[in-house]
């Protein structure tokens, strides 16, 4: 049975019902890693927020999201909260702001364990130190007593990954988890994520605009454009033999190192003719590929 099953999911915002996610369906099997690639504004972050149930109040959701057989879109907050952070967790993009600045990081992690179990305070601390140690935080027993501002970006992201894995979830959603980090740190954090996901045997929805990252971490990939999934398949299949022109364009633009220095770089429009060509005069005030739909209320 799939860990996550999304069917005909449509998410729109505000009174004008601007569509961000359009009739998306996808499945993730236990232990599977699915990469979700797309440009900014393609709806990938909205999709992630919908799955974990953290959309803003003005969002309208249609369709179904089931997690371990349980329907999430209609689940009351109290019951949803029992799943969040335990079986379904998330790693966010911005390590600098994702932790409470007024609370020691060890306490934030311990709180999360206590929230979902009956374990006592004493054993929790040891558990947190162990997990911090495993995600490669040197001197874990000191770092648990640090405030977020005392840690570097890479260290904070390790803390966040530790928090996402500490309860041994069955699905981890990673939303551009390394985008805000330096290249060398990014490589290390990615390797860590790879190992740790394997060790707790968690499935992963890995959201990124960077095809290289997805290629190195995910077995499968889905390409999202303007809120719709345009292509999905095994990673090497999709990246080496893209069937959709948008994917082909994405792959070509991402491979700068394949172009001789100084020569013209391929652009998406060489492959695919989207409605929003970059040099055309602006049509709407937003660069988000929103589209109006009928009111569903």
């Amino acid at each position, binding site marked *: 049975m799939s860990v996550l099953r999304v069917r005909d999911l449509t998410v729109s915002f505000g009174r004008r019902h601007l569509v961000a996610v359009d009739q998306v369906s996808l499945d993730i099997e236990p232990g599977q890693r699915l990469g979700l690639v797309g440009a900014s504004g393609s709806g990938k972050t909205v999709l992630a927020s919908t799955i*974990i149930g*953290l959309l803003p*109040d*003005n969002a309208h959701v249609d369709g179904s999201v089931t997690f371990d057989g349980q329907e999430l879109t209609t689940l009351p*907050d*109290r019951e949803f*909260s*029992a*799943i*969040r*952070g*335990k079986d379904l*967790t*998330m790693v*966010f993009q*911005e390590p*600098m*702001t*994702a*932790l*409470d*600045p*007024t*609370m020691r990081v060890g306490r934030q992690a311990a*709180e*999360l364990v206590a*929230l*979902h179990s009956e374990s006592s305070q004493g054993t929790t601390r040891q558990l947190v130190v162990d997990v911090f140690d495993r995600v490669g935080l040197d001197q874990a027993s000191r770092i648990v007593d640090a*405030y977020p*501002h*005392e*840690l*570097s970006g890479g260290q904070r992201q390790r803390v*966040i990954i530790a*928090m996402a894995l500490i309860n041994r979830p069955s699905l981890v959603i990673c939303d551009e988890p390394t985008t805000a980090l330096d290249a060398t740190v990014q490589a290390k954090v990615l390797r860590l994520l790879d190992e740790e996901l394997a060790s707790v045997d968690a499935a992963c929805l890995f959201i990124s605009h960077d095809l290289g990252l997805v290629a190195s971490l995910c077995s499968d990939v889905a390409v999202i454009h303007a809120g719709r999934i345009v292509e999905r398949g095994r990673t090497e299949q999709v990246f080496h033999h893209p069937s959709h022109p948008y994917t082909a364009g994405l792959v070509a633009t991402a491979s700068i190192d394949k172009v001789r220095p100084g020569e013209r770089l391929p652009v998406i429009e060489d492959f695919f003719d989207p409605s929003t060509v970059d040099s055309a005069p602006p049509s709407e005030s937003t660069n988000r590929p929103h589209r109006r739909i009928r009111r569903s209320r």
Partner: protein
Amino acid sequence: MALLRAATRRVVIFLVTVLVASAVIFGIVQALPGDVALATLGMGASPESVDALRVQWGLDRPLALRYLEWVVGMVHGDFGASYLTGQSVVSQIGPPLAVTAWLVGLSMPLSLLAALPLGLVGAMGRRRWFGVSVNAATHVGLAIPVFFVGAILTIIFAVKLRWVRANGYVPLTTSPGEWAIRLVLPVASIVIVQACFLARYVRAGFIDVLTEDYYRTARAVGWTRWRGLWRHGIRNVATSVVTVIGLQLASLLVGAILVEQTFAMPGLGSLLVQAVRRRDLMVVQGVGMLLVAAVLTVNFLVDLAYLAIDPRLKRGGRS
């Protein structure tokens, strides 16, 4: 070490600020054009009698000297004597200070107590009817002058219902029951307005938290809406409320001055207004200095408290 240096710096700044504030107050009251002696005796007075009065009050001596005397006196607890009655200012300030202190001292915690839930509900429900109505109510409360609230409460509870007497003040030591009865309406008036004032800060603080990434983390980690907001929001809100406590004290004092008038209470406000009407400058100056110094001191203490609380200041963080 860095902490000690920072604290010393703040103490020095505080002392200088108080000194400058005293100069400003003295300057406003004494140095501005307008002859007190003349004003006291009236336009028809002979120049000789005016001069005599000036000499009697010491107004013929240089301003700087008078200022110095005043400041040195205050350091020794002597605020000078009234020009009109010759009575020492300190002895005049004593009893009213107790009245105003009770008013402010009771209103401050009570308004905070009322503001917290109002702000929390207003933030959480900012897109629903309950939050919107709380928000609207605080908006209206903020617009009503405190003396008008006092007037309405008087009309309802003293004139129509006749539950309490809305006049004067009885010291706690004389009769605790009467003391309480006389204080209920004035304190309630101030609390209603102040709670609305504070609730807006509390609400803004919680709304800030709602848009923070770390609140999203808290939610993703399994906190429910309300508990997550309380757990990870209260500290943020506490800091923003502490920040305005100096400001709040200023507006509480203003509220007290006005409410004392409404309920005919012999507090500092009444003393001040009466002194202004009689142009009793030494009293005006003394009371003004006392009020400003109180606000400055609270601001200074808040500043010091920050130094002790904020982890970022304590350890000299990296970012």
